[in-house]
């Protein structure tokens, strides 16, 4: 099947307007006759479910958590971008579009990104009307901050928990519809398969995580807002339950999977402390506004620090290597995430890592304390030459800005970041890849849609900070509700979809067989044992820097591990009860397939772009080298085994933006 991205004709700025003017609509009376299933209740799924219900469709929404409010969108800290230009610093729809495409290393689809930038301003209006408590200035108007990789202040925020506040906004809209009976909410349910009837997505098979019951749910269309697959690395900043199962099952039923290798490794996370580690914690990118990143210049100092004989604060300025400022004087500590992460890895690989495992660099606020402190001392008319006083004043300012993050760091690491620099290291954070969708956000399966992080479309090979929230809400509130109508307009006479068809029988049977196999297997190792091993392979061979040899061995190792998993995994208990191990086993089974496709995709992409860095393709200074011949989206079609997946290419055409060398020097 040839890929058709269905991008509307016409000038870039008019495409979305023209589309909305000409697509098919479903009249209000007919919407009542149409059912839509939304899987996932994060920013994308939650906002989509609420909006579709409000339009009049009958919505069934599913989440595996005990409440829709707990979806992992909640953990986003820094903010949400919108081209409001409230600061009057030259922002515009085009500039947000430009920054996003450039930040994504010219691997995203122009028309989608432009539409995203276009609706971004609406998001802020919508959220404020819903009562989202964004940060404000004393005049009562909204405040903005700045994020990595851009030159304007367009990020709206609610302290260090913008994600939670936006999700609560979407959740409140969802609650309103649940209260009205327009959304039927299924908490603690996990989608385990999508059902295709006559070539169209017509329902799902879900497992009730409390009772173990396998349920059939039908609808005229299915929407996946199921997030990313960062947990394929075992250790990531994703929630423990975040998984690829819904997306992967969709892939196995015919949805192409695009650019699986595009992973964002976030530069500022708390380093791993030991083997017991279950997840990694992010420190907001906003910290890089004020923190300076460094490692010692000399190996002997590194050794002394690791041995505990030297404190970082004792090291002279001249003996420190502020490597980001050294390598990228223009953007300094605020280079995009992929660049900052790779630079940290480069220093640590060279032996300059500052903790016991050699995988940590310093994020130092000492200079910020002094800078802010001097300012405060000046404002209050105090002695600017008294260093102790100035530091104390500066610490108060920093505490106001990032207090909760500093506290979180201290709780986890047991070191006071006001007195000694933080230690950070990159960690898997976000996956730009995902299910391939066209301009309508429809996958290659008619009636099956993917929104938010679950799709691939807007961030190319690297996502800019504060753009994930923007995309999730744009898709859910403002894009999908229009585009899905175009498809559903043909379904007004279809009537309810029966769940007793052979397609449902077959899907349910395959789910039951899988579960029975896992329960009856009675192997010797727990699910986590396999998941951790998969994570190690992924991190070591498909992580921040990749090469052909490693990727080839990753492919065979993962395939081997998968075989071993099915033979030797032990899942205690039964299906007919609350059984977290079983739920985990079903998720890890899919990660074990996705991981292989991931490596295969990374192997094919013989270039470096954004979060995907191939060691064979770098400049003499070690920067990523993009290649023109790879200016396409890799969309993989499932053919039985990940290794047999068939590649389809969607060429990326840039008509409104000049493809340039991405330089932050």
């Amino acid at each position, binding site marked *: 099947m040839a890929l058709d991205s269905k991008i509307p004709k016409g000038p870039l700025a008019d495409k979305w307007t023209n589309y909305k003017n000409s697509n098919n609509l479903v009249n209000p009376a007919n919407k009542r006759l149409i059912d839509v299933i939304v899987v996932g209740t994060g920013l994308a799924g939650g906002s989509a479910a609420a*909006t579709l219900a409000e339009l009049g469709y009958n919505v069934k929404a599913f989440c595996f*958590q*005990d*409440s829709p*409010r*707990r*979806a*992992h969108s909640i*953990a986003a800290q820094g903010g949400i971008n919108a081209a*409001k230009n*409230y600061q009057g610093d030259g922002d515009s729809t085009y500039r947000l579009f430009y920054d996003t495409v450039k930040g994504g290393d010219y691997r995203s689809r122009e028309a989608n990104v432009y539409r995203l930038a276009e609706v971004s301003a609406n*998001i*802020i*209006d*919508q959220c*404020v*009307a*819903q*009562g989202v*408590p*964004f*940060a*404000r*200035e*004393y*005049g*009562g*108007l*909204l405040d903005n901050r700045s994020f990595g990789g851009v030159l304007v202040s367009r990020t709206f925020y*609610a*302290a260090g*928990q913008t994600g*939670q506040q936006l999700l*609560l906004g979407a*959740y*409140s*809209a969802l*609650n*309103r519809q*649940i*209260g009205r009976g327009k959304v039927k909410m299924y908490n603690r349910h996990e989608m385990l398969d999508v059902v295709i009837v006559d070539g169209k997505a017509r329902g799902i098979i879900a497992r009730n995580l*409390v009772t173990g019951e396998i349920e059939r749910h039908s609808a005229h269309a299915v929407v996946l807002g199921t997030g990313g697959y960062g947990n394929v690395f075992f250790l990531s900043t994703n929630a423990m339950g975040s998984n690829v199962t819904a997306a992967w099952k969709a892939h196995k039923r015919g949805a192409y999977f695009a650019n699986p290798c595009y992973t964002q490794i976030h530069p500022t996370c708390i380093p791993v*402390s*030991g083997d*017991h*580690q*279950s*997840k990694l*914690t992010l420190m907001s990118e906003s910290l890089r506004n004020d923190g300076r990143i460094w490692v010692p210049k000399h190996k002997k100092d590194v050794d002394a620090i690791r041995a505990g004989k030297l404190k970082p604060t004792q090291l002279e300025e001249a003996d420190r290597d502020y490597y980001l400022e050294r390598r990228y004087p223009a953007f300094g500590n605020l280079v995009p995430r992929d660049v900052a992460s790779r630079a940290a890895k480069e220093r640590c690989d060279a032996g300059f890592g500052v903790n016991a495992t050699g995988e940590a660099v310093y994020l130092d606020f000492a200079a910020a304390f002094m800078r802010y402190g001097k300012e405060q001392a000046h404002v209050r008319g105090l002695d600017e030459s008294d260093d102790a006083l100035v530091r104390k004043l500066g610490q108060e300012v920093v505490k106001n800005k990032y207090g909760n993050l500093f506290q*979180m760091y201290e*709780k986890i690491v*047991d070191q006071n970041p006001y007195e000694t620099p933080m230690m950070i290291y990159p960690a898997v954070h976000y996956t730009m890849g995902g299910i391939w969708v066209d301009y309508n956000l429809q996958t290659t399966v008619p009636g099956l849609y993917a929104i938010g992080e679950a799709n691939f479309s807007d961030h190319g090979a690297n996502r800019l900070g504060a753009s994930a929230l923007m995309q999730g809400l744009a898709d859910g509130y*403002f894009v999908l509700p229009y585009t899905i109508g175009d498809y559903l307009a043909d379904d007004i006479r279809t009537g309810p979809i029966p769940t007793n068809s052979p397609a449902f029988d077959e899907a349910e049977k395959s789910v039951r067989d899988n579960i029975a196999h896992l329960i009856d297997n009675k192997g010797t190792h*727990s699910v986590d044992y396999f998941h951790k091993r998969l994570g190690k392979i992924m991190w070591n061979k498909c992580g921040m820097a990749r090469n052909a040899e490693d990727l080839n061995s990753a492919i065979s190792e993962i395939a081997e591990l998968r075989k071993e998993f099915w033979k030797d995994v032990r899942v*205690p*208990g039964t299906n007919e*009860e*609350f059984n*977290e*191990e079983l739920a985990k086993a079903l998720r890890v089974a899919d990660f074990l397939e996705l991981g292989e496709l991931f490596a295969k995709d990374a192997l094919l992409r013989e270039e470096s772009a954004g979060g995907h860095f191939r060691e064979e393709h770098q400049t003499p200074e070690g920067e990523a080298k993009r290649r023109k011949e790879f200016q396409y989206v890799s969309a993989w079609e499932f053919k039985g085994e990940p290794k047999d997946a068939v590649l389809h290419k969607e060429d990326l055409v840039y008509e409104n933006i000049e493809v340039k060398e991405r330089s932050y020097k």
Partner: protein
Amino acid sequence: MNLTLKIWRQKNANDKGKLVNYPISDVSPDMSFLEMLDVLNEGLINKGDEPVEFDHDCREGICGMCSLYINGEAHGPDRGVTTCQLHMRMFKDGDTIVIEPFRATAFPVIKDLVVDRSAFDRIQHAGGFISVNTSGNTIDANAIPVNKHDADDAFSAATCIGCGACVASCKNSSAMLFVGAKVSQFALLPQGKIEATDRVLNMVKQMDEEGFGNCTNTGACEVECPKGISLENIARMNREYLKASLKG
């Protein structure tokens, strides 16, 4: 560290349940409490026993999924953290740790340490929203200026993660800190004032129907709240409720 865990085991909602002792060794002080339970579970699975079920998800203190009543306190002895951010360095070698589910009639146990907190969701369905369509065709965000202090107070109320520690800690299993925070967030904002009367009446009615106890102002909820939600929010809800009731 070597520890003795006394953990509540209950097969399902109808089972009676009991505390079971589990010794655990080689616990690192850098582990989070949940990672310690992961280690316990790994051992149980390897031995052929059933692992202890507990709720958890983000493990960074924001999703509100984790719970646990640890040594007589919701989210354990540390302050301002959820169980996932409680670290084992808060305990000493040789300690006995009692781990129970959050207990309230409105939070029935599902299995072991997992409880059903959907009562919170139902309270929200009853009125935890501003009735605005999600069309995006609202007025410009800056057309509604909000006094910064009100905005900050609304934000503080909105930081509630809905974990249920307030209910678990309250001797009366009252949900008023939770509901007070939700009512306050909207009551403090101009956008939310329009529906204030119906909202507070409906949410309190649903809260009562769910079987939560009444508030006797012991203040336990505020102390144990991982997000430090203030009792002022309960007072504000009381005011809002009185105002609304008198309006009729």
